[in-house]
């Protein structure tokens, strides 16, 4: 019994150590973002040790003045719209595929799962042509449409699994009580599916928030750029020696804040959502 307690203690200590190692790059990002540029770019070894009097928020002021707020606003609009549509559409589709069985529902389910495997880079070229034809290039709507579509295969798959795990007797009871099919779906099935819904909402939000490839191809003017492409075109340089790391790290910290908040406050649904995809019921 004593040995077991000892093992538990070793596990606890080592898991904290691992956590610090894994998170070190993020800690370093935050630390670097508060430093003065001149001190950071000196090769003097003393300068890597944290010193409080070097604390400065000037780089934050700089990035906020140089368009960060616009990128932030665009990202918020994009991520929230994507989340809303992805949740609504994947609930409807997941429900139709599991409960309203119709001819071809199996094959449609398979096709949706297959689209998950298609490399996004493969879609980029023709998608660019489609978006141009629709007149949506260089608009946030074009990007939002794309993000919704790429969030759907996984979200539908997850909701389908979730609906399968709910006993059909629940809606049957509602139907006997005189509810319509749609009424039973909205009033009985959806409230029971909240854990699944919150998982796909988080997933869709983060997908849109962090997406770089499509944003870089579809958005060309600063007015409509989202954070990933906005930060990279505004605050990075292709020349190694002219890279302003402090400003870049400040922009990176600002753009990561919503994700960090989501992860701290909604951790329960994230962990269960991740497992739902993989753990057999």
């Amino acid at each position, binding site marked *: 019994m004593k040995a077991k307690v000892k093992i538990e203690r070793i596990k606890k200590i080592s898991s904290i150590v691992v956590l610090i190692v894994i998170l070190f*790059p993020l800690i370093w990002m935050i630390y670097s973002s508060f430093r003065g540029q001149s001190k950071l770019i000196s090769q003097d070894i003393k300068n890597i040790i944290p010193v409080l009097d070097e604390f400065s928020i000037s780089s934050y002021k700089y990035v906020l003045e140089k368009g960060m707020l616009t990128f932030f606003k665009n990202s918020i609009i994009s991520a929230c719209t994507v989340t809303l549509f992805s949740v609504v*559409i994947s609930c409807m589709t997941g*429900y139709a595929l599991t409960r309203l069985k119709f001819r071809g529902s199996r094959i449609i389910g398979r096709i949706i799962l297959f689209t998950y495997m298609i490399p996004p880079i493969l879609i980029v070229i023709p998608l660019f042509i489609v978006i141009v034809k629709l007149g949506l290039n260089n608009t946030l709507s074009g990007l939002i449409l794309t993000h919704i579509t790429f969030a759907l295969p996984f979200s539908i798959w997850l909701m389908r699994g979730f609906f399968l795990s709910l006993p059909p007797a629940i809606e049957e009871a509602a139907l006997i009580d005189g509810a319509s099919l749609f009424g039973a779906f909205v009033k009985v099935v959806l409230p029971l599916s909240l854990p699944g819904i919150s998982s796909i909402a988080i997933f869709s939000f983060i997908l849109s928030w962090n997406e*770089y490839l499509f944003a870089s191809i579809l958005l060309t003017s600063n007015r409509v750029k989202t954070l*990933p492409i906005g930060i990279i075109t505004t605050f990075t340089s292709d020349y190694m020696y002219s890279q302003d790391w402090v400003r870049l790290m400040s922009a990176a910290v600002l753009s990561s804040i919503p994700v960090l908040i989501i992860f701290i406050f909604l951790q329960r649904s994230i962990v269960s959502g991740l497992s739902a995809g993989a753990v057999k019921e």
Partner: protein
Amino acid sequence: MRKSRTILSILFISPAIIIIGLIIIYPFFYNIVISFFNTDIFEPANNYFIGIKNYLYNFKSESFIGALVNTLILTFSSTIIQIIIATIIAIMLNVNMKGRGIVRSMYLMPWAIGAYVAAYIIRWMFDLNFGIFNQLLSLFGFVEKGIPWFTSPKLAMLSVIGAHVWKGLPWSTIVILAGLQVVSNDIIEASRVDGANHWQEFRYIVFPMLGYIYMVVFILRVIWEFNWFDFVWLLTRGGPSERTLTLPIQVYKTAFLIHDAGKASAIGVVMLTFLIIFVFIFLKVSSTEGESL
């Protein structure tokens, strides 16, 4: 009743069908078609049919073969290393402690932040002269001059693999941990009540259940790593001298820097073919071992 069911299912399923059809399925087939054409993305009127010349061109090109090899090396080495480390960490995290939930969500952070953020943090940390990593190495006297982690042809691929392991590790760990927890609690106790010994417990309970988890983690990670564009692109742009050039980067460069959409699409089609063959073989092999999806 049946009629209303049909109407509702059509209503429910059509938005997804339309949008997936428009944004994924139609471009997908369009892409296969233009891979047989000489295509300029900005001048579609000038396209003409050239058969399999795009494919032949790619398979004769050194860049493409190099990119294919690089992609396979990057995908499989980072997936396998990740799964091994993730298993060790998952066993460590599988313990009752205060603040377990918060530890887990903190642990997921590197996975949650954008690949663009991660790429630039890593480039900063491993910067030749001012990066913390090189500074620490020289502080302790391991090296005299900074090591060019991402800019030397010899080290670049190793560094990129390391970065990919770090970024993907949290996800793999948390999923494997979820598997461990399903196994560890009720079922093992039930098997003990039924008189199973440790070996039987592992062979008939832990292994089959974790086997499924490992299969899912492996397949999904391989698909993601194989298709992953932005992380490598922002870390190295495929350089130095194409040492970290991967297939997605090759597609991007061919389509948007050289404007040869036909050749780019052909590379994309080859990528998808590889993935489909991999998933098919993997599912076949693992289902003969008594597992099924």
